[in-house]
């Protein structure tokens, strides 16, 4: 294999389409006779539906139909549990999944109660107030810790309490070592909720063709194939009669892997009822209630270290806010549990969590997927231990890193993929060295900071590490074919939401087939083109689908060579693939073009040789036995105004290990996007609920996301430890940038202010909240 493109900063194939407005998004789909759907959603976080009368709405201008739970009949079913509980001993798990339309009770603001179908969205929305719904409010549960108190209002009557899950994972024996510790740092650490805030909200267009018996659904999902399979099952259709297309999507960030959203269940059913296409596009306000959210956790954690700062053990007990329903099972708290361990030697670990139902929107992964709270806890406790022991923050990390010969490293606890948490590979110290060098750590502390302080300026530096389990199974597939035109087509099942799949997958294939990256036409996320696979999540697209593309391209290369050997009457070993042709190495004049071979491989008359297949096409699958462990070190320089508590992030350095890099430009883009997301998560983005679980900032006026001026220039570099668990040695990168930003920000701000009483133990931290902490620290200090 010649690697002309793998690893090269190839420009993205898809950018021309995206930048010239030629890319199809769900809302671009316009069909003859298409109707529009609007949803009546609950204004109450917790209420009983005592009456529901849609007759006046049905009579309204332009209204075609109005549906309630009662109209759905047998089709009304709670959604599936997406991730079965992981095999943890003594696990307690209670599952309650979302329903298409609320029947007896609503459990969060924004839960849909009725669907109105009209000629236009205007008419549909205008009919919503005509629906007479009596909601008898019940006391609501906003706080996950309060939710678990014995007198808390119960959200799901079938359970004895609001406890959704309880799990303990242990390694070693924390209790036995805590006595020997030179220092035990105990803290309560909070992580609040945020939204994913994609540029494009969710949307569904569904079209039923009675004559062909085919249902086509355009959906902003990250998992088109499972959506297809689920819809076929729910609607009683053969899977091949359902086509789900996830076209270009303006940002996934996790919530679009959730399924099935009520709208995804209802629109396909509605089009089959009415025989007309239907469209629903989520508006920004709906998105704040109807799209899943993440990250509310409350940790009681302690870190035991010896006098040199070496970790003896960690004990952590946390409450996880599952929201009103928990279709995603335990993925998030288990990710928290596992990712907390970080790149460190932690001989003894006790981790316990309780998941609590609350009357807040459903929780499912948002970029990072439970990892941020874990990293926040570990990194903060290390900072505090370093402070107590008078050790530099980089030094305490260095002393605790797993050594390079420790891999593969089995932690002996269960990860989200139900297998043991194994780090496949890694080499952490060089990343830390490189990051300290890039941000000029020593000079900052010895010169820059004192000089600024002399001028009355408060600048600070932070540096943290993390790991991220990526690229988990089960599998993905790809089909590569050569068209009679000589162009190469590649189809894979994963959906794409801006990750550059049209380029990175094309690079992998182009290297095998000896064509240009621009000669490879990539199709993703269309079940009509490829219908095996699971989806884009867990930083797995490049790892799992990328290796499937590789395997398919290798197989196709063999087919091309065999066909060409026959046509050119040459030995396989004497042939090479160059610029879309196969030629004899020693006699380049003897060659045949791919297109010609494709035609010959699919003859109209004659016979295809027994034991061969027609066409130049190959399909392959890849399923890693275990995921690959990405890691990184982030560093940041901030300046804090102690009077206003405003923080200016001035520099940001990321040294990242995602194994072998397919396309450094794309990875850099992913990381910078993640850093922007991370900066939002630490200083700007917080969903604020009142005690009745009413969201107080459901618009971009009040829910702040970082703007371009809030995101500093990001310098990136790579350390490469190839994953031994996949042929290409790849690790995932999609979530990485967002994962360690919170503790980094906290550390840098504390470093800037140098106030003994100031500890940032909650995220996000707004300027207002930071100001309060500063005031408190001044009083105690």
């Amino acid at each position: 294999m010649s690697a002309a493109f793998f690893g090269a900063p190839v420009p993205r194939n898809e950018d021309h389409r995206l930048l010239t407005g030629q890319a199809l998004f769900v809302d671009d789909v316009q069909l003859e006779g298409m109707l529009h759907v609007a949803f009546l959603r609950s204004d109450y976080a917790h209420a009983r539906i005592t009456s529901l009368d849609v007759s006046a709405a049905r009579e309204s201008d332009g209204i075609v139909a109005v549906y309630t739970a009662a109209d759905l009949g047998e089709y009304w079913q709670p959604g599936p549990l997406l991730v079965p509980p992981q095999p943890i001993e003594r696990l307690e798990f209670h599952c309650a999944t979302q329903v298409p339309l609320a029947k007896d009770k609503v459990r969060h603001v924004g839960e849909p109660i009725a669907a109105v179908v009209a000629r236009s969205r205007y008419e549909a929305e205008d009919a919503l107030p005509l629906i007479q719904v009596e909601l008898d409010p019940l006391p609501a549960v906003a706080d996950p810790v309060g939710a678990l108190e014995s007198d808390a209002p119960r959200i799901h009557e079938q359970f004895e309490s609001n406890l959704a899950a309880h799990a303990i994972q242990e390694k070693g024996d924390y209790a036995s070592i805590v006595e020997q510790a030179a220092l035990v740092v105990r803290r309560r650490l909070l992580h609040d909720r945020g939204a994913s805030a994609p540029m494009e909200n969710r949307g569904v267009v569904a079209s039923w063709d009675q004559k062909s018996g085919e249902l086509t659904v355009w959906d902003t999902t990250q998992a088109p194939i499972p959506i297809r399979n689920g819809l076929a099952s729910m609607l009683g259709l053969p899977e091949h009669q359902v086509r789900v297309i996830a076209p270009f999507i303006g940002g996934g960030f996790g919530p679009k892997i959730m399924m099935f959203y009520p709208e995804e269940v209802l629109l396909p059913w509605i089009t089959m009822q009415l025989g007309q296409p239907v469209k629903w596009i989520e508006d920004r306000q709906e998105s704040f209630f109807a799209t899943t959210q993440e990250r509310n956790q409350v940790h009681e954690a302690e870190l035991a270290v010896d006098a040199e700062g070496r970790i003896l053990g960690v004990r952590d007990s946390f409450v996880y806010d599952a929201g009103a329903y928990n279709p995603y099972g335990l993925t998030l708290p288990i990710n928290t549990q596992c990712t907390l361990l970080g790149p460190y030697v932690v001989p003894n670990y006790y981790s316990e969590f309780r998941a609590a139902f609350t009357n807040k929107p459903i929780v499912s992964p948002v970029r990072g997927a439970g990892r941020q709270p874990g990293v926040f806890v570990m990194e903060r406790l290390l900072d505090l231990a370093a402070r107590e022991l008078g050790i530099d923050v980089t030094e305490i990390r260095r002393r605790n890193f797993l050594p390079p010969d420790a891999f593969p490293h089995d932690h002996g606890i269960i990860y989200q993929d139900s297998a043991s948490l194994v780090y496949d590979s890694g080499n952490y110290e060089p990343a830390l060295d490189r990051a300290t060098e890039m941000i000029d750590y020593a000079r900052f502390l010895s010169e820059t900071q004192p000089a600024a302080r002399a001028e009355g300026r408060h600048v600070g530096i932070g540096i943290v590490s993390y790991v991220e389990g990526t690229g988990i199974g089960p599998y993905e597939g790809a089909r590569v074919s050569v068209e009679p035109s000589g162009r190469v087509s590649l189809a894979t099942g994963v959906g794409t939401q801006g990750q550059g799949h049209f380029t990175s997958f094309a690079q992998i294939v182009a290297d095998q087939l000896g064509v240009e990256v621009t000669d490879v036409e990539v199709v993703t996320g269309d079940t009509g083109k490829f219908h095996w696979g699971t989806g884009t999540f867990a930083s797995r697209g490049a790892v799992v689908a990328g290796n499937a593309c590789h395997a398919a391209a290798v197989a196709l290369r063999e087919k091309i060579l065999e066909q060409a050997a026959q046509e050119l009457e040459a030995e396989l070993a004497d042939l090479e693939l160059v610029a879309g042709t196969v030629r004899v190495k020693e006699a380049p004049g003897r060659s045949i073009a791919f297109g010609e071979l494709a035609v010959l491989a699919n003859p109209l008359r004659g016979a295809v040789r027994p034991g061969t297949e027609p066409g130049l096409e190959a399909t392959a699958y890849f399923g890693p036995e275990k995921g690959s462990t990405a890691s990184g070190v982030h560093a940041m320089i901030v300046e804090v105004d102690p009077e206003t508590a405003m923080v200016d992030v001035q520099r940001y350095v990321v040294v990242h290990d995602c194994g072998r890099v397919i396309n450094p430009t794309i990875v850099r883009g992913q990381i910078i996007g993640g850093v922007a997301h991370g900066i939002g998560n630490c200083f700007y983005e917080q969903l604020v609920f009142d005690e009745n679980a009413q969201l107080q900032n459901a618009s971009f006026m009040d829910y702040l996301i970082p703007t371009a001026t809030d995101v500093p220039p990001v310098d990136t570099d790579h350390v490469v430890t190839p994953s031994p668990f996949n042929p290409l040695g790849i690790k995932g990168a999609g979530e990485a940038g967002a994962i360690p930003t919170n503790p980094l920000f906290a550390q840098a701000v504390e470093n800037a202010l140098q106030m003994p009483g100031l500890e940032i133990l909650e995220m996000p931290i707004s300027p207002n909240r930071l100001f309060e902490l500063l005031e408190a620290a001044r009083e105690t200090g």
Partner: protein
Amino acid sequence: MEIQSEFLFSGPRDELWVNLMDPAVLAKALPGTKLERVDEDRYVGEMEATVGPVTAARFDVAIELVDKVVPESFTMRVDGKGAAGFTKGTAHVQLAEQGPDETLMKYTADLQVGGRIAGVGQRLLDSVAKSMSHQGLEAINRHLQGEAPPEAAAPVQLLSRPVVLAIGIVVLAVLLVLLL
């Protein structure tokens, strides 16, 4: 959400009471409200409010008066629902003499605000809402002092006087809630 506030009127309590009983006075303080009495202490109607980007949102309002101690105090239960959300809660109003020419109105309210009006209107128009509530009470106060006699307002003429007062307080309370 609990709120507590007070307003000092420049006039004796009896006179304030009489003025407060005048629907026209409150109509001026509370434009956009229509109410109908359904029995002795229960009223239904509608109210229009603009809270930030939620413009001219209509709410169906149901109000019930309980624990009336004329002319000193009463408690009201309010339930408002509309396309833009809901308000629900209880308000307790007291009038106390503060010397011969001053009366202190104290009110406490425990209110829930939900839906779009809570999510989007929460703090955008803090200052507008503050000034609206202040203007409403000031308007009543000015009338008490014999200034700027209010124009008659048709929508509230069906109302009994205590109810108009009650509505006034609730609307003001809701606006105040939105400030917090």
